[in-house]
């Protein structure tokens, strides 16, 4: 049985009372509230890259294809790890995943007739309701005019210093709200840390 004091370790500790109330209300309403409530405008002008930020202009590669292009991405690295104000003996790289346009993806699936229209429609609905474990859905909002998503397993990284913080205001598409960030971390954690390996390593 878990000690009563230990339970508090699993609850957010840095939120104001009203923010915490909002977070739990949003968790209660999930998945009916996968919309612009996932974003906040409070930190758009901060010269800090927050975990889960959507930013445009990052270099992306999809190996073994050697093409490299600038595109929109979502930052996967922990905010503290990539904060330039935190002195570290080891300079962290910044990890991110490219953003895909959900509308374009669905059009591709339909054009290729990869499945019945009904199955494709169901798949799109599963993406929008965050059911697909490899995908994090990003509803239109912030500076995004259409729905998007990322794959947790399409990760790129770059030198943390190479991303200029001074022009983040122009390049940042969104910052996740407390609720959006909770969903993001929850899904990211399950993707990488779930105990379903089914391998006896010893």
């Amino acid at each position: 049985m878990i000690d009563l004091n230990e339970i508090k370790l699993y609850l957010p500790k840095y939120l104001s009372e009203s923010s915490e109330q909002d977070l739990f209300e949003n968790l209660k309403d999930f998945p009916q509230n996968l919309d612009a409530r996932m974003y906040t405008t409070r930190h758009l002008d901060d010269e800090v890259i927050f975990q889960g930020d959507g930013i445009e202009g990052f270099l992306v590669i999809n190996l073994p294809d050697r093409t490299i292009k600038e595109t929109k991405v979502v930052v996967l690295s922990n905010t503290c790890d990539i904060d330039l104000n935190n002195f570290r003996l080891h300079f962290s790289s910044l990890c991110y995943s490219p953003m895909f346009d959900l509308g374009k993806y669905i059009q591709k699936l339909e054009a290729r007739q990869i499945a019945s229209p009904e199955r494709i429609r169901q798949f799109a609905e599963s993406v929008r309701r965050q059911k697909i474990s490899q995908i994090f859905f990003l509803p239109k909002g912030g500076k995004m005019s259409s729905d998007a998503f990322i794959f947790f397993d399409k990760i790129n990284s770059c030198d943390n210093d190479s991303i200029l913080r001074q022009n983040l205001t122009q390049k940042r598409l969104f910052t996740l709200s407390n609720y959006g960030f909770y969903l993001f971390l929850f899904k990211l954690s399950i993707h990488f840390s779930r105990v379903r390996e089914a391998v006896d390593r010893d």
Partner: protein
Amino acid sequence: MLDIALNISKYSIPTTLTSALHVAPITGPNQIPREYHALPYFVARPWEEQYLPKTLIDDHGKLERIYQFAVNWLQESEDIPDEFAKILNEDFWEIV
């Protein structure tokens, strides 16, 4: 607080806390590790609420909400079909 002090012999704290906690018969999805099923589920009976700090009750309610949120999510989760993922790799630069 005075109320607690007056009733401390009648409702000792350990007894109250023990009776207020039990392991819920939660039927979660198979993919949840077994130990998660043993999370204590807090039930405060009306007569107990006055002897337990409000913050303790609130924290249990929040933890229960997070737990139910996680269970519901995991029960609904599914993998992307292989053929769907293949298209994304093939048309990667047209979809970003």
